């Protein structure tokens, strides 16, 4: 068996240790063919679940779980406060700038009426989108985080149950101003905006080809 196939199987089983394991994990982050080999073994060892007998967990597990991920209350407040701790000055400056921005539309006539906070679950990636339906303009700013090395961020609109529609690739350095076609703008005021990481130039597929990193609903300002 080729060495990499053997190492991938050993990694999936948890048999690699110490330096050998660390070296393999490092290669794995950059080598997609190697990642595919690990996935092969993981999928085969796990199976599709049809051979596993059901064993119902007690209802208390779900109760605790749903509390742990609840949007309101202590957890979310903690997250927001934690974020302010990290980005305190920055966030405040952002609010002031946004207020000024809203009061005084810039010379090019961009007058947003909708916005979306696009955030990763763990808040490692945060973006703000402002939408001006009159001018079909969408402005997106990355407030925290970035695309992984060698990748770009692509913005998607998801309207209801429809497939995601690409709105474009975002600039790596500074705000992106996207001019939307009629098809892109359809239903946007009630859409969810999502951001995926993609190869340079954007997804080669109709939908996201990379991981969906962050999402947020469009709301009226």
């Amino acid at each position: 068996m080729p060495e990499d196939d053997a190492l991938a199987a050993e990694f999936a089983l948890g048999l690699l240790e110490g330096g050998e394991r660390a070296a393999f994990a490092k290669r794995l982050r950059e080598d997609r063919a190697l990642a595919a080999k690990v996935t092969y073994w993981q999928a085969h060892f796990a199976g599709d679940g049809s051979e596993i007998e059901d064993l119902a967990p007690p209802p208390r597990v779900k109760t605790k779980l749903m509390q742990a991920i609840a949007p309101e209350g202590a957890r979310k407040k903690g997250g927001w406060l934690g974020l302010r701790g990290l980005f305190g000055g920055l966030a405040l400056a952002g609010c002031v700038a946004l207020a000024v921005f809203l009061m005084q539309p810039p010379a090019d006539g961009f007058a947003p009426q909708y916005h979306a906070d696009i955030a990763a679950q763990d808040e490692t990636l945060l973006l703000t989108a402002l939408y001006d339906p009159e001018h079909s303009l969408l402005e997106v700013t990355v407030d925290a985080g970035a695309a992984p090395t060698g990748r770009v961020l692509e913005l998607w609109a998801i309207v209801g149950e429809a497939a995601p529609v690409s709105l474009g690739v975002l600039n790596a350095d500074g705000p992106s101003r996207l001019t939307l076609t009629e098809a892109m703008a359809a239903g946007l005021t009630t859409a969810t905006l999502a951001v995926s990481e993609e190869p340079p130039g954007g997804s080669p597929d109709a939908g996201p080809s990379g991981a969906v990193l962050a999402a947020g609903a469009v709301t009226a300002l």
Partner: protein
Amino acid sequence: MTPQQEIEAMIARTALGDRAAFSALYDRTAAKLFSVSMRVLGETAAAEDALQDTFEKIWRQSGRFRAGKYSPMSWLITVARNTAIDRLRQRKGQAAPMEEADWVADPGPGPEEAAIARSEAGRVGACMGELKPEHRQAIQSAYLDGLSYAEISQRQDIPLNTIRTWLRRSLQTLKDCLSR
């Protein structure tokens, strides 16, 4: 939608922060994943904690899942297995986290390739049956009991290098059988 596509859709909605979809995903899959936790950890309290951990990971990081070659169940089972193994090893005072292996992603294949991969995955039980019993035992004790090469070597009283050589040979046999 096939059951697989339904689960994939639930994972996709979860990635967008949809709690109702996540709740439905739990209802649909928790009994399988709890079974995995129990098989690895062997006692209810630890298995319950591991199951909660598993689903919190799924909630936080479902955006990294991509529908592809394999059943979405195999991915969920892998997360449950890795989470339980990490707890088992912590209990033994070992730290070699499997967690980093949870989200190894696979570039998506064409539909034909996916159909082959999915039917292969269902055959693994039969292919394991072709291995010598002690070799099958070694693979199972690594996968389900989190044993290291050193522990397998002790348990089966066979030198470590020998174990590694024939375990790798067994994996090759397994792969040949799966792709037949």
